[in-house]
């Protein structure tokens, strides 16, 4: 397909989409206004009328995206898509270019990350193209145990795969600008050595053939700057994660297909499982500083959307390869962890507001930014809408009670109101039906038709129960971001460890109280009219229970054994996912022993650490330990490893001469001059877990 055809198709689709969204929203708005006609309006009604287009517009956008996606699925894919262009016919003949696979990590589960690298290495080796790929494990971990374990895991991988000079480890001393800073650091140091980089998250895995194909797509289409894949959510064990990955498999695809169909060459970038052309990325995509007065809030938190916008501003295309197999990620294991993630995403997405009106940004990007903003802004809007709607209903009921005149019974009794309600329900649930329809041809891989439908029904119940809970939290997150409270980036928990009931009560208990109080007030003041709100109050009431039960690993696995919430990847497990389920719930109950003290005691662990940080040694005074670390070292020797704070340990571990000095002191001081914990650690140093797990493995 020629580019002009593609541009015409893009223009037509965008016009249809934008026009359709406006038309549907306007129709819904007209129905709402009609339903209010001929009756007195109270002040809350004006709020409802003002907010309605925003909420209904979002629903209409989702509905249209699903329609576009379904249409694309019905006709067997988008003929104008990058991955369907003529280059595919000569795909195997396209030579590859040097590509770095960059994996930024921050206190992630090291065993899981290294297993993922091993699987990808093996998969690439099978393609025969491993020579074109190098791996970079770029660490910002600020937990000493993770740092030391990462170093040992890196050596283990290099040894096991004979990959010295192919797998690299980089630890930043000052993790400026979090993940985007980590990637920029890679680009500044080694970017010139490669034409492409494949960015992965710690929980991402991609198959060798997919990576090879993506690089070839980039080689064949030099106008493309970023090629994003649509990763499948996999490896879920808890009910929550299994429900998420199931809904992602059933509905996610048509939404992604719809987005791609509308956006085409101005697609999205999600920060991982994507291949990037490095030269323009270095030249054009360093993140700008936000124009806010507080210097702590000038860094762009969610970098991906902005990078995609900057790449397109520079004249390069961004595509989503929505139907590429062999690209995987993991979801949050429970509601609590999803909220942690949402808190970060919300703060990041709201920052994108600045780019909504920035000059030089493509329309497709502005649309993406708008959708991202509304994903979180919809929550406070929805909450305000509900409160205002309830107050309006109360005012109307009170007015009727005191009115002797033949006033009507309010908006909900108008003939337009049921029609509007039905339309809203269609907009909300038809995309789900389309998702199910698109999954039917492979129903067997979802456990069969019956199990697929039962799973969909249960997933719908879980969604109905969680949506109002998320609404309250998202409202809080929006307020938090707007009021400027500092957001800390934390490590995402990827283990299906389950939540304690106490944690759930602490986190969600206030919603139960709100649910009871809300239902009581609604019943007292609105009477039967309150039944519209009952599903929301029920969701709030049961929030702790929902969070607790859905975090159960045993329930998720039990349902899996019965064939519910199955995803295609479980019917035919790909080799790239072998051995990636590391932690089970039982393991988490034990507190693991601290690992970093072995960097001071175990000769091998210490040697690996010293070799890795030697070139950055800061001790040039000849006085050992370094004067700034002398007191710290004495405290460590006399009071044991537990006496030091995390930051103090990190300072100490960065100083190679002091680390070596401590090694000598800890081994040669008599027991009386050492804290008792050191003796146990010394006895353990010949069989410590780092040796057993990484360094002594044959």
């Amino acid at each position, binding site marked *: 397909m020629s580019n002009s055809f593609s541009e015409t198709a893009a223009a037509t689709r965008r016009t249809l989409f934008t026009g359709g969204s406006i038309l549907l929203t306007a129709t819904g708005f007209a129905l709402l206004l009609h339903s209010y006609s001929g009756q007195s309006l109270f002040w809350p009604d004006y709020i409802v009328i003002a907010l309605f287009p925003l909420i209904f517009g979002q629903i209409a956008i989702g509905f249209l995206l699903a329609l576009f996606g379904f249409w694309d699925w019905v006709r067997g894919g988008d003929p104008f898509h990058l991955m369907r262009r003529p280059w595919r016919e000569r795909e195997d003949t396209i030579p590859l270019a040097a590509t770095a696979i960059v994996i930024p990590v921050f206190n992630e589960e090291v065993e899981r990350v290294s297993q993922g690298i091993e699987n990808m290495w093996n998969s690439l080796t099978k393609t025969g193209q491993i020579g074109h790929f*190098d791996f*970079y494990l770029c660490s910002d971990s600020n937990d000493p145990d993770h740092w030391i374990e990462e170093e040992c895991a*890196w*050596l283990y991988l290099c*040894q096991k795969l004979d990959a*010295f*000079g192919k797998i*690299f*480890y*980089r630890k930043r001393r000052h993790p400026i600008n979090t993940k985007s800073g980590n990637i*920029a650091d890679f*680009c*500044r*140091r*080694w*970017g*010139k*050595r490669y034409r492409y980089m494949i960015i992965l998250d710690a929980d991402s895995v991609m198959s060798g053939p997919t990576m090879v194909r993506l690089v070839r797509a980039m080689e064949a289409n030099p106008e493309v700057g970023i090629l994003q894949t649509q990763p499948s959510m996999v490896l879920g064990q808890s009910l929550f994660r299994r429900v998420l990955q199931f809904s992602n498999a059933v509905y996610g695809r048509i939404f992604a297909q719809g987005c791609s169909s509308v956006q085409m060459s101005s697609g999205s970038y999600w920060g991982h499982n994507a291949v990037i052309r490095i030269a323009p990325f*270095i030249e*054009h995509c*360093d*993140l*700008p*500083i936000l*124009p806010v007065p507080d210097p702590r809030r000038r860094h762009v938190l969610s970098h991906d959307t902005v990078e995609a916008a*900057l790449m397109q501003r520079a004249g390069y295309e961004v595509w989503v390869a929505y139907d590429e197999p062999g690209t995987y990620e993991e979801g949050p294991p429970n509601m609590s962890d999803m909220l942690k993630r949402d808190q970060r995403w919300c703060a990041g997405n709201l920052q994108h*507001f*600045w*780019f909504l*009106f*920035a*000059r*030089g940004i493509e329309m497709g990007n502005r649309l993406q930014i708008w959708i991202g903003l509304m994903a979180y802004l919809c929550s406070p809007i929805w909450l305000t809408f509900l409160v205002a709607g309830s107050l309006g209903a109360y005012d109307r009921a009170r007015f009727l009670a005191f009115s002797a005149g033949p006033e009507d019974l309010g908006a909900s009794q108008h003939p337009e109101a049921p029609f509007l309600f039905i339309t809203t329900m269609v907009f909300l649930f038809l995309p789900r039906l389309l998702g199910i329809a698109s999954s039917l041809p492979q129903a067997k891989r979802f456990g069969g038709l019956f199990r697929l439908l039962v799973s969909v029904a249960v997933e719908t119940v879980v969604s109905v129960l969680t949506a109002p809970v998320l609404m309250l939290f998202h409202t809080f997150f929006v307020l938090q971001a707007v009021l400027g409270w500092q957001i800390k980036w934390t490590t995402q928990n990827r283990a299906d460890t389950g939540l304690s009931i106490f944690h759930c009560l602490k986190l969600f208990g206030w919603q139960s109280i709100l649910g009871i109080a809300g239902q009581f007030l609604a019943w007292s003041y609105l009477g039967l009219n309150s039944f519209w709100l009952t599903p929301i109050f029920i969701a709030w009431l049961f929030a702790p229970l929902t969070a607790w039960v859905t975090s159960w690993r045993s329930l998720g696995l039990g349902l899996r054994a019965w064939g519910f919430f199955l995803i295609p990847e479980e019917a035919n497990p790909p080799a790239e996912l072998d051995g990636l389920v590391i932690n089970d719930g039982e393991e988490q109950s034990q507190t693991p022993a601290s690992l970093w003290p072995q960097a001071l*005691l*175990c*000769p*091998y662990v*210490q*040697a*690996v650490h*010293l*070799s*890795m940080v*030697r070139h950055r040694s800061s001790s040039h005074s000849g006085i050992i330990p370094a004067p700034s670390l002398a007191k710290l070292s004495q405290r460590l020797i006399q009071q044991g490893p537990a006496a030091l704070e995390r930051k103090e340990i990190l300072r100490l571990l960065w100083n190679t*001469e002091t680390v*070596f000095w401590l090694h*000598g002191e800890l*081994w*040669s*001081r*008599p*027991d009386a*001059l050492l804290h008792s914990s050191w003796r146990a650690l*010394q*006895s353990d140093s*010949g*069989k410590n877990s780092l*040796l057993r797990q990484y*360094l*002594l493995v044959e």
Partner: protein
Amino acid sequence: MNTTPDKTADEEQAVWNQAHDRLRDFLNAFALGDHAQVSLLTLKLLDQARELHRQGPSLDPVSLVMALVQKKTDEWFSSNLEMRDQPASRLFSSGCVALLLSRAFRAAPETFLTSPLPEKLKETMHQKLLVTGPDLKISSMTPRHIDYGPMLGLAKRTWHRWNSREIIIALLFWAAVYFVFYWWLSEAL
């Protein structure tokens, strides 16, 4: 470390036991495949330490034996890696990494601290070097100018005019006005 000169025999035995345990743990940390070799080395080094202790009884046995084993380790690494005039920390870490990667601690544990490694293993040890990253090829990556459009001007003006204290005072003022007005309408009238 000095020991007090008037130690009883029991105390003397206790500190030597301590020295033995410490030395054994240190040697075990090298994960040698031959356990008997560890025991032999322990006894041999302890004997040498006792001899030194007889010449200087004020020295603490633990410190003495550990100084001895550290010295032996440095010498052994130095001879096998042919690394001369290197700082002790570099020699020790390079030696341990080479030992680990060449698997010499498993292949020739009997040579550990006692005799040179077989030539083949020595060569392997020489080859084993860690490469944590390829040579740098520095690029300059700096943000390009972006015009944030009309919102920036609007926001800047707002920030220049308002501060949080003024906003709070204004809110309190209008809340007070509202409540007075509400009270007047509902109660006073």
